[in-house]
């Protein structure tokens, strides 16, 4: 059993090479056995007599010679493998049980000023601890990025040590609490946890350890708990925390007059360390063969910097975007970030409306109806990026939803159960649905059924609430949260809202799960959204009033155009957020995707949930495939922002977080102790080797250079 060996090989591959080297003398032996052209001979009488008298002795001599020749490469390989004697293993085992928790999270890639990674230091310490074990002792290794899977066969110390040499730090975030829980559970289930020792080997940098997440792990009585770190060296590290577009959908053929926000991406940089002034570095944005490079200069103490970059129209973003900062810092993994961007020629809108039914409304040219007002807002000029298809709710078919990005429902009351299920399908595939109340109805029974058809539990009052006097719109009390469709115009909104009056609106109920985008003056919801990433991947925006002059003066106010543009673009953008994710997590790839692939690694997608079946192992632009095997888009997977923060953790905070029963390891104690136990075996081996070489030379001369068969 390798674990019982009384020595350790520093370079085991050399020993393997030595073992392979045995084949050389054997090969020579076999070559000499090959059949030669026989020599015709007359005096066979003497030949046979001589051979039969010496055969046994010759064979014995040749066997000895062959053995020596085979032993030479073996010993040479063994000597080059640098075996060291493990004196401690010669002693009987003490029944120790060691649990090593090694932090292999992305932040363990941090390189210190000596050029050594945190992870390498953890492995050195782990090896030192393992070397102190004796036969019969037990060792189990748990990695913090994957606590569930413990190293197979880890109870064998020799195997564990060899395995440690094969592993490398992950790109995934560290999950120390989960690892502690896993080890705790193992110890609880073990028969004698009292003789166990737990070593937590982590650098406790801020990126890999969150003191706000309580581990609440109580280990059984008598278990010895030790930890290394936190590493106190401040290392310089600059990273790209965010690489995001203003819109998740990029319109390819947007004209120069279109708002430039479609072509803008935002890059957020952050740095750790001493934050010295005047530090400059290059920031490259790479899209296929197109490359934009600019110099970033940091001010003293400046830790974050956001850079906006407008992409030229002619650049094809379908293969993804990569941003890279050229910095010679302590970690290279976070110097790059990827972005997948969906591009489209235009936003396709299906307007389900029935204009003209209400003659009373159409009597006035000044009030053409909600559907028409929305069309005016979305297509103010001839070069609009919106393609609007108007259709009566009672006649539209499933096929009409093909390639549609947004469904605007101004007559939800006319949508039956079948049509409702089609719209739900649209939501499930990441679409946007905008619902406004029918302007002509006086009672609104449709809300509950429409809400139900879309998988929501929202409801509203049967009758609209009349505002007398009319009320203006307002921003919600809570600040507009990140990801809100109206985030980009949040600065201009207050002024626009003031001038808009609402005469009547529906009173919403059961909207706890909804995001309130705009309110009325009294704080009651005016426009809400919901569903995205919750019930379905798509998004639903619900207005409590239609853009109709009977309900509001919004159609004639400056708010109308930017509001609907932002509701649709922003709403659609949030609905399509499936194109990004983080390493080490289960990522939602969306429905219709069966697998994702990158650099030879393929991960299946669970059909029911649309998420990956395993956590993402590494960064990059992953390609999504449908059930026909066709590529249907890209997924940009990056390290979670903050997970590469190399700022050293506060020793006191770490100590408090772990608890009083944990003892901090002295920096080099285990290593120093272990070296004394391992005298090298190289010299004795070389001595034996020299003796064998001399023996081989002497015996080779005495005997002969080959082995031969007998008579016959």
């Amino acid at each position, binding site marked *: 059993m390798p674990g019982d060996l009384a020595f350790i090989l520093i370079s085991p591959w050399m020993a393997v090479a030595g073992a392979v080297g045995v084949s050389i003398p054997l090969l020579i032996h076999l070559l*000499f056995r090959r*059949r*030669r*052209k*026989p*020599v*015709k*001979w*007359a*005096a*066979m*009488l*003497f*030949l*046979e*007599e*001589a*051979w039969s*008298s*010496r055969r046994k002795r*010759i064979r014995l001599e040749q066997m000895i010679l062959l053995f020596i020749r085979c032993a030479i490469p073996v010993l040479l390989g063994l000597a080059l493998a640098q075996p060291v004697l493990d004196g401690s293993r010669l002693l009987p085992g003490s029944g120790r049980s060691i649990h090593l928790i090694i932090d292999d999270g992305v932040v363990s890639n941090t390189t210190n000023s000596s050029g050594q990674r945190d992870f390498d230091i953890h492995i050195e310490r782990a090896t030192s601890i393992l070397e102190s074990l004796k036969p019969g002792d037990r060792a189990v290794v748990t990695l913090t990025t994957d606590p569930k899977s413990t190293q197979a066969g880890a109870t064998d110390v020799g195997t564990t040590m060899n395995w440690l040499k094969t592993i490398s730090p992950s790109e995934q975030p560290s999950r120390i609490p989960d690892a502690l829980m896993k080890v705790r559970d193992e110890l609880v289930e073990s028969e004698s946890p009292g003789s166990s020792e737990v070593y937590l080997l982590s650098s406790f940098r801020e990126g890999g350890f969150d003191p706000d997440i309580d581990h609440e792990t109580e280990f059984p009585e008598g278990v010895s708990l030790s930890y290394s770190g936190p590493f106190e060296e401040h290392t310089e590290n600059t990273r790209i925390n965010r690489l995001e577009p203003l819109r998740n959908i990029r319109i390819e053929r947007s004209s120069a007059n279109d708002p430039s926000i479609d072509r803008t991406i935002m890059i957020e940089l952050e740095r750790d360390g001493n934050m010295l002034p005047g530090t400059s570095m290059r920031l490259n944005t790479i899209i296929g063969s197109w490359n934009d490079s600019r110099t970033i200069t940091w001010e003293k103490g400046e830790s974050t910097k956001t850079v906006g970059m407008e992409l030229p129209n002619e650049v094809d973003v379908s293969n993804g975007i990569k941003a890279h900062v050229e910095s010679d810092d302590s970690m290279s993994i976070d110097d790059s970030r990827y972005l997948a961007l969906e591009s489209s020629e235009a936003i396709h809108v299906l307007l389900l409306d029935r204009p003209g039914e209400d003659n009373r409304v159409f009597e006035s040219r000044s009030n053409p109806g909600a559907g028409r007002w929305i069309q005016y807002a979305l297509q103010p000029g001839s070069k609009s990026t919106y393609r609007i298809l108007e259709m009566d709710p009672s006649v539209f078919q499933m096929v009409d939803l093909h390639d549609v990005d947004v469904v605007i429902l101004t007559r939800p009351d006319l949508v039956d159960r079948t049509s409702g299920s089609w719209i739900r399908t649209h939501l499930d595939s990441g679409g946007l649905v905008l619902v406004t109340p029918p302007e002509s109805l006086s009672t609104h029974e449709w809300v509950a059924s429409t809400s139900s058809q879309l998988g929501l539990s929202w409801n509203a009052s049967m009758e609209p609430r009349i505002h007398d006097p009319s009320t203006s719109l307002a921003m919600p009390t809570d600040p507009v949260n990140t990801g809100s469709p109206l985030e980009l115009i949040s600065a201009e909104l207050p002024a626009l809202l003031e001038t808009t009056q609402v005469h009547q609106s529906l009173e919403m109920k059961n909207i706890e799960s909804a995001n309130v985008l705009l309110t009325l003056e009294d704080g009651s919801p005016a426009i809400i959204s919901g569903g995205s990433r919750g019930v379905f991947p798509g998004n639903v925006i619900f207005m409590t009033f239609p853009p109709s002059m009977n309900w509001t003066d919004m159609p004639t106010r400056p708010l109308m155009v930017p509001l609907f543009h932002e509701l649709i673009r922003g709403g659609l953008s949030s609905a399509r957020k499936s194109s990004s994710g983080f390493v080490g997590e289960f990522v939602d790839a969306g429905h219709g995707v069966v697998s994702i692939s990158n650099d030879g690694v393929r991960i299946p997608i669970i059909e029911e949930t649309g998420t990956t079946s395993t956590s993402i192992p590494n960064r990059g632009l992953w390609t999504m495939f449908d059930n026909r095997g066709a590529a249907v888009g890209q997924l940009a997977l990056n390290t979670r922002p903050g997970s590469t923060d190399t700022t050293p953790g506060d020793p006191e905070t770490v100590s408090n977080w772990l608890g009083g029963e944990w003892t901090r390891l002295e920096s080099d104690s285990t290593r120093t102790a272990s070296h004394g136990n391992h005298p090298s075996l190289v010299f004795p081996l070389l001595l034996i080797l020299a003796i064998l070489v001399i023996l081989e030379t002497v015996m080779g001369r005495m*005997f*002969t250079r*080959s082995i*031969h*068969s*007998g*008579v*016959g």
Partner: protein
Amino acid sequence: MKNPAQSSGIQKAESYLAPETLLQLSSFELRAKMIVEGIRSGLHASPHQGMSVEFNQHRTYTPGDDLRHLDWKVYGRSDRLTVKQYEQETTLDVLLLVDCSASMKFGTLEPKSGWGGTDGSRSSSRWTKFDHATATAAALAWMALQNTDRVGVHLFAEGLQHSLNQRSTEQQWRQVVSLLSRQAIEGGTDFNTSIDQILSLVSNRSLFIILSDFLENPGVLRSVFAKFLHKRHDLLCIQVLDNEEIEFNNQDPTSFLDLESETEIKLDPTLIRDSYRESLRNHEAELRRGLVDHGFDFIQMNSHDPVGPALARSASRRREWLKNRHAG
């Protein structure tokens, strides 16, 4: 001390009798003649030596007798014409027994240019033991015929292959040469059978000269020698071995294939060289002892050496035998 003329004659004879010279000659007959020239050049004892006519008795002269044979001393004392009557030596039968088994095909001496000769040399392109044995046999036959001996040749392997009955005619040597040059070399060696067959053909007491490598169990050979003694024949055994067989200087591990039995043995010569040489020495000693015990003679020839010594030795043996016979 040899005078220069004698020394020059020796060198000339040596060059005639050396295998390196002989194997240059494509015709076996020519080769045999070359040996004869070597003998004539004076290195060895004269072929007429031993051809003395010995006095037998006196008789009264009768007309017609050769006056040269009158004993003038007797006439002076007794005034009687008396003729010295001489007894011509009984004609000696020299029988050459040449081994033509496959083992005689072995040879390692290489020619300097193309040459032919016996079946052995034609098939192996080397100066074989058989070449050496037949060259020696041809020379011996010539010498014997010069002594007016009757010469016969028997070729044997697993049994008697070919025979040429003993004669002392002028054509006999040519026939001997012709027989030796045509003989195929094949098969194993069975001394017992072969010698039994040959001895059954010979009634006169004869001098047998066996030319063979004698690669046979010494016990078997000893019983064969006893058969010659039993029939009161004399025997000279000339063992012909190749230099490589004697020295065994092969270096590379290889497989050795027995020329007679096809047995194969794979070994490294360097490992058993000493043992081999010791076996060879033991065999030779036993062979020699077996012959000496029976009153016979033995000579070992290296096929890379000249044939001269063997010829001298056989001539000496002939004289000795004749003396012994008269004494007996």
